[in-house]
């Protein structure tokens, strides 16, 4: 299993994580598929995404929005890529359409077969067992406008993930409270930080904090 979970940010912020993703693919110039969380503005995000990898001289990218009908030809090609990246945005909306188009199991199989799955913010939350962290803190959370009740994610890792983390009392308060009722560790990453998972091993890049059973623990591994 090869995963990269991005805490957020753009461009240079994530250079190290981008490099890690390429390394996981095991090719100098892997092909990447970009799946935006929503097609609205997705083309612009795709352009930015491609720009992020310009310094790696990568040129093979597929843009694959999933909140609209798509043809089998493009979908098959998208899943042939070495890396699939799940973009940031509204986690509930993203999950709703991944489910609607039966892409959850396809993504799982992609990972199972050795593909590298990366995700930023919402895209990273989706890789975890549940997407509950999308619902807080109250002052900066995704709106569940699709009224999703089944919050199960891709369940590729045995931890939860909180992106755009800022070390402040109001963030910590909510994360500590949540970690008390959460059965797995909760990793919080700032913009530019993230986790790289390879098989059973994982490492953090940048500022990562672990919340577990009501405790906040600085994490570096």
């Amino acid at each position, binding site marked *: 299993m090869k995963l990269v979970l991005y805490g957020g940010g753009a461009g240079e912020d994530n250079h190290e994580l981008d490099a890690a993703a390429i390394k996981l693919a095991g090719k100098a110039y892997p092909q990447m598929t970009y799946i935006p969380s929503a097609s609205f503005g997705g083309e612009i995000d795709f352009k930015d995404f491609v720009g992020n990898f310009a310094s790696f001289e990568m040129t093979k990218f597929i843009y694959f929005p999933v909140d609209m009908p798509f043809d089998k030809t493009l979908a098959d*090609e998208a899943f042939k890529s070495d890396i699939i990246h799940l973009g940031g945005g509204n986690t509930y909306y993203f999950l709703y359409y991944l489910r609607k188009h039966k892409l959850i199991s396809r993504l799982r199989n992609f990972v199972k077969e050795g593909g590298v799955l990366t995700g930023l913010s919402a895209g990273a939350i989706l890789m975890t067992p549940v997407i509950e962290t999308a619902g807080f803190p109250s002052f900066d959370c995704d709106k569940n406008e699709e009224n999703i009740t089944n919050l199960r994610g891709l369940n590729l890792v045995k931890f939860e993930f909180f992106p755009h983390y800022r070390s402040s009392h109001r963030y910590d308060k909510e994360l500590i409270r949540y970690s008390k009722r959460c059965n797995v560790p909760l990793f919080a990453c700032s913009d530019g930080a993230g986790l790289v998972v390879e098989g059973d091993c994982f490492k953090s890049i940048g500022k990562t904090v672990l919340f577990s059973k009501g405790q906040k623990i600085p994490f570096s591994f």
Partner: protein
Amino acid sequence: MTITKKKKTNLTNSNDYKSFDKINGRHPFKSACPKSFVDYPARLRPGGKLAFFNFGLAREMGMIDKNHPDELNPALENKILETFGILIINEYDEMNKIEFPKDQIKPYKYMATRYLQLQHPNKKGLTSGDGRSVWNGFYKKRPKTWDLSSSGTGATKLSPATAIQNKFFKSGDETISYGCGYSEIDEGLSTLFFSEVFQQNKIATERVLAVIEYSKGISINVRAHNNLLRPSHMFRPLKQDDLESLENVVEYYIQRQKENGDWKGVPKTRKARFEYFLKKQIEVFAKLSADLEDHYIFCWLDWDGDNILMDGSIIDYGSVRQFGLFHHEYRYDDVQRYSTSILEQKQKAKYIVQTFAQIVDFLSHKKRRSLHDFSSHECLNKFDEIFEQKKKKNLVYKMGFEKEDQEFLLKECPILIEAFQKPFSYFEMAKSKKGLEQVADGINCSAIYCVRDILRELPQLLLSRGEFLEKSDFLEIIQSDYITQEDQGPNSYRDGMIRSFQQAYQDLVESVCCHTKKDLNKVLLEISMRSSVINKYDRVTGDSITTIVDQVLNARPKPKPEEIYRLMQEFVRYQNLDPDVRPEKGPIVIKQKNKKLFQGFLKIVREYREGL
């Protein structure tokens, strides 16, 4: 459209909107072209409520302060109602000696302009023109002058109803529809949503400044544009052999174009000026026809030169549509006749240009020759030349090439472009074997392929695979929902076209690589990024706009004018098809209650994306 955060300023005094007072019925056209309008006194029309105000346009025009918030206040609302909420006092009112309170009568008269209209029995334009609208005036703030007119301000004597029934109508007479002089709110909002999307995507158009709503869905729809003259304003005096009036209108038009900076280097001598005028009009209408075809815009161009502005801007959205596919057999059923088709628009535009040549000849020689005498005029060859060049330009643009690469291809590789035009056109024009069918408001033989889809996906797939697509993959991408089993049957010619399409596509890409010394993959990547915006999956169609407007009008609670403005802004941002424009993210805030409505818009656009 630029989305900017406005500083809140406290504008609540009507003095802050004094600029509106300049819009009072007076207009330079009246003195320049005294025989080209009918003047009407007007009165304030009670019972109006502002349904929409275009803050962005008002700022662009300079009518409100550039820091004005996108919010109404009582002073602004009253000023808009006072300025535009008017009803003319027409011939019916005068004949019936209907009296109106003096304090409600506006100080100046408002003109209904005269122009040619094919739906009038008199084909010389003796009776036709603005049938239910008047010009509110003009607004001048450097560098531009804007014309403002309002639809729904009462029945004028220039409506087809008056001409046909030979009587004057009371404004709002429910026994007739078009001739009653009223407009409806759905027309205003449809025009708004359509025109703002077009405007953003560089398709010249009239724009909506405000919509004032009255009871029973009646409205006054205020339009603005830099020059509201139509070809038909010139064709009327031409048909009537009225040289003086014709010259007045032509000179007036040239002068405005010059003042607005739209035309530069206008010659001073009379003859050279008219030649310049003709040259410009050939260019405008040739490019317009190519653009209309390539954007799949149907606007019912006809010989009368109505339904379009002199500068090629779209006006009168009642008959305007944008198709999702190239439904080139669609014709609108106008009860007595069918409209032109999208492909026939070119011939109509050419005919309009031929008429411009006739105008210039008439002005130069002071003797009107038959239009037929100009059927081989060099202007028509020039038209074809510009048209063909614009078609090529549009094609390489749609493919996704960058500007410099487009220019290179147009200059150095016209034959390669032509080689691509053939299979491209084959798929674009292919229609269903089901043949002509009745559709909601006309007839159509459905197009069956969506070339926008293949242009969006092909570069990505070529990039990924490094080889041509199998024909089954190609067809899976390009076929639309209109395709039938029969259309999908074996077809060796089509199979050959799939190969030609990809080969010609690749030849163009490779030419650019060769010229720029760029790697093939890099060029394909750039193309795929640009093409994904240009050929966005969701693009508005006429049907989608109609349905969206229905949703807005049926929404409860009714969205306020500011809310409609925000919905419109967000919709326009969503409909950006220009890869060189980066729509700003935020700070448009759609209220929670309207978010569902907006999401509904997106679903509607998607649902109707291949339609009419």
